[in-house]
């Protein structure tokens, strides 16, 4: 017994060293950046630009992360194909709705209605792809060990990526630019790109909407019940299969909408666009505490912020070349740091204890 305590101490020391090393590097970088003014001299406006870029990217991550978190909540399964749900809806809606609407002039004449139509189509396609994937690749394996559906999810991810590549080709497809969203707004004296503002506002609205849906509606209650215990939920008269399908559909709808917001900001879509945001959103979901909706939102925002602000703040001061290239290094190091302090993520608690 005493042997074990000694080991824990030893490991504890190593972990402590690890944390301290990261914190020291971060602080040293920050201090030499802000006070010793190493490298580029950023103005306050520059820092605000970094913040806005991070927050808008982060809110996209948050929307995608919701899908991971919801599915994880009910099935304890990493749905690797979620990034592909995001891509499929966006590509289809861009090609068949957004581009024709834009070239006919409808989109600029009725921007709100036009965007609504595009978003709804994207959501529908994403939901369709998600339900099909769930039915074919996940449902037959509901009782298999957890690694098995992980592999079918990876398979589904490859399949959809290359299916849509075959369908629409591998070229980059431009997303139409909305005339009303060109330029900047000034909010409290801060200039902010219109597209980014719209993304942030839309994300917040969707997040709140989803939260209400899960917490206040009957279907949401059913989802929570299934997440708690499938068998007891079934005994209470809940159709478990249907509820799981609804969970997938909800996540995919969020992803489809996020895809159109993505298209609006970056104005280009292609078949590979789901892969990296998918991984990032998965990271965000874990960071926030997988299975928790506010966690996914917080995790997404945190990840987006750290990716934008981290390189100039932490690394440039240390004289590291090509700092922005290393944003993923910072993001994942922060992830490790957070998980060492809080192994269950920022707000996750319930699920980490249960089975994660």
């Amino acid at each position: 017994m005493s042997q074990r305590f000694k080991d824990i101490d030893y490991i504890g020391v190593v972990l402590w060293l690890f944390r301290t090393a990261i914190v020291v590097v971060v602080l040293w970088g920050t201090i030499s950046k802000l006070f010793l003014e190493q490298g580029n001299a950023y103005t306050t406006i520059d820092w605000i630009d970094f913040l806005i870029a991070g927050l808008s990217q982060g809110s996209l991550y948050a929307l995608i992360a919701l899908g991971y978190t919801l599915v994880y909540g009910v099935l304890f399964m990493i749905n690797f194909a979620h990034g592909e749900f995001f891509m499929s809806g966006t590509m289809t809606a861009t090609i068949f709705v957004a581009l024709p609407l834009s070239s006919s002039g409808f989109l600029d004449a009725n921007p709100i209605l036009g965007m609504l139509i595009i978003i709804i189509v994207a959501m529908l396609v994403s939901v369709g792809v998600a339900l099909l994937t769930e039915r074919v690749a996940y449902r037959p394996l509901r009782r298999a060990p957890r690694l098995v559906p992980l592999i079918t999810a990876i398979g589904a991810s490859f399949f959809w990526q290359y299916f849509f590549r075959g369908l629409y080709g591998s070229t980059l497809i431009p997303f139409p630019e909305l005339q009303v969203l060109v330029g900047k707004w000034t909010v409290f004296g801060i200039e902010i790109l219109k597209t980014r503002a719209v993304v942030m506002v839309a994300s917040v609205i969707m997040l709140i909407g989803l939260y209400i849906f899960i917490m206040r509606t009957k279907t949401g209650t059913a989802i929570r019940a299934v997440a708690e215990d499938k068998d007891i939920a079934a005994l209470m008269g809940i159709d478990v299969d249907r509820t799981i399908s609804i969970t997938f559909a909800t996540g995919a709808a969020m992803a489809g909408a996020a895809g159109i917001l993505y298209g609006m900001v970056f104005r280009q879509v292609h078949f590979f666009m789901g892969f990296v945001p998918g991984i990032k959103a998965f990271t965000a979901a874990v960071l926030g505490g997988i299975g928790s909706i506010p966690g996914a939102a917080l995790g997404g925002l945190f990840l987006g912020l750290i990716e934008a602000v981290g390189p100039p703040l932490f690394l440039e001061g240390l004289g590291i070349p090509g700092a922005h290239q290393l944003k993923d290094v910072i993001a994942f190091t922060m992830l490790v740091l957070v998980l060492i302090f809080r192994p269950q993520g920022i707000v996750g608690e319930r699920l980490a204890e249960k089975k994660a």
Partner: protein
Amino acid sequence: MKRTIFLVLISILMVMGLAACGGQALECTDAIGCVEIAPDDPILIASSLVISGPNTDLGLDSQYGVEIAIDFRGELLGHAIELQPEDDGCNAEGGQTSATKIVSNPQIIAMVGTSCSGAGVPAAKIISDNGYAMVSPSNTAPALTDPELHEAGYLRTAHNDKVQGRAMAEYAINELGVTKAAAIHDGDPYTEGLASVFSEAFQELGGEMVAFEAIDANADDVIAPLTTIAAAGPPEFLYYPVFIPLGSLITKQAQEVDGLDGVILAAADGVQSPSFLEAAGDAAEGMYVSGPDLGFGNETYDKFLAAYQEKYGTEPTAPFHAHAFDATNMILDAIEKVAQQADDGTLLIGRQDLRDALFATSGMTGITGTITCDQYGDCADPKIAVSQVQGADFVKIWP
């Protein structure tokens, strides 16, 4: 019982084999062997280009260039021309595997490829060691034609990064008169090579590099690195020799960053394609792109583009289809030059002869310019053109 059947089968096959082997007249005197093509057999060439993964666009576009070159040629010395397309995966192991596959087929005469320089390094070694020859349409890494590292069977129609990066630096300093520049690369050997060469040449010519930034090729938001660059100078000239997705993203987002609104944008042939213009839209207006002189308005290229659209239903998706077209023609011309022909139509092609003919290519008129190879396999027209995007088209403005 099984064995008996097997033996019977084998003996039947052997008898047939003997019957099929008639007399033959041509004799191979080549130092590293010959390819013999029977009267009805096609002339077989291979390609090893990236046709899977995120860089698919680049390789498939080149492969289409090869296919169109073959279509245009129709027949060669009375034989059909057939292409065996392979995938280089845009990585070293893909280059190695596809090259090994190609050299294991003695009927393959030469290879067009690879797409990526990383795949080209191991492929060049295998192809050369086995007596084959390859012409790459898009390897630009200086190492491949470095006198110390060059492999005997390696040639390319793509520009060496050294030429192109330097040309852009000269243009920026001498023609545009800028003194402060920034460069961005995405961690790919091609873009990193170009950006480094540009930055060295720019400083050598008396300019100042205010920033040298790197962005992950898969990044989807580049506002942060662009803000960093703006704060560093801001530069008058921003050079980002990357591929289309990241290139169009930088082009569009540069407008949205304070301090970069007036900056001169410039990229390289990685984005020189209609699909870039479509993706980048108005933001690309006025930017500069270095690359081969595609002779816009050149008759062959017009014919090529029409055939491309007809056959594949899309505009070219990447810039190297023209290089691939020229590479294929180089190989076909060399075959035509060195093949010995028997009366019955049998062809005999000496592998060393073919290599010699390829390296002796001189003054060939291709889409990418006049092609002349040096002893290390650099065949691209050393003249680099700078085009400007005007009215959603590339317009050549220099030299």
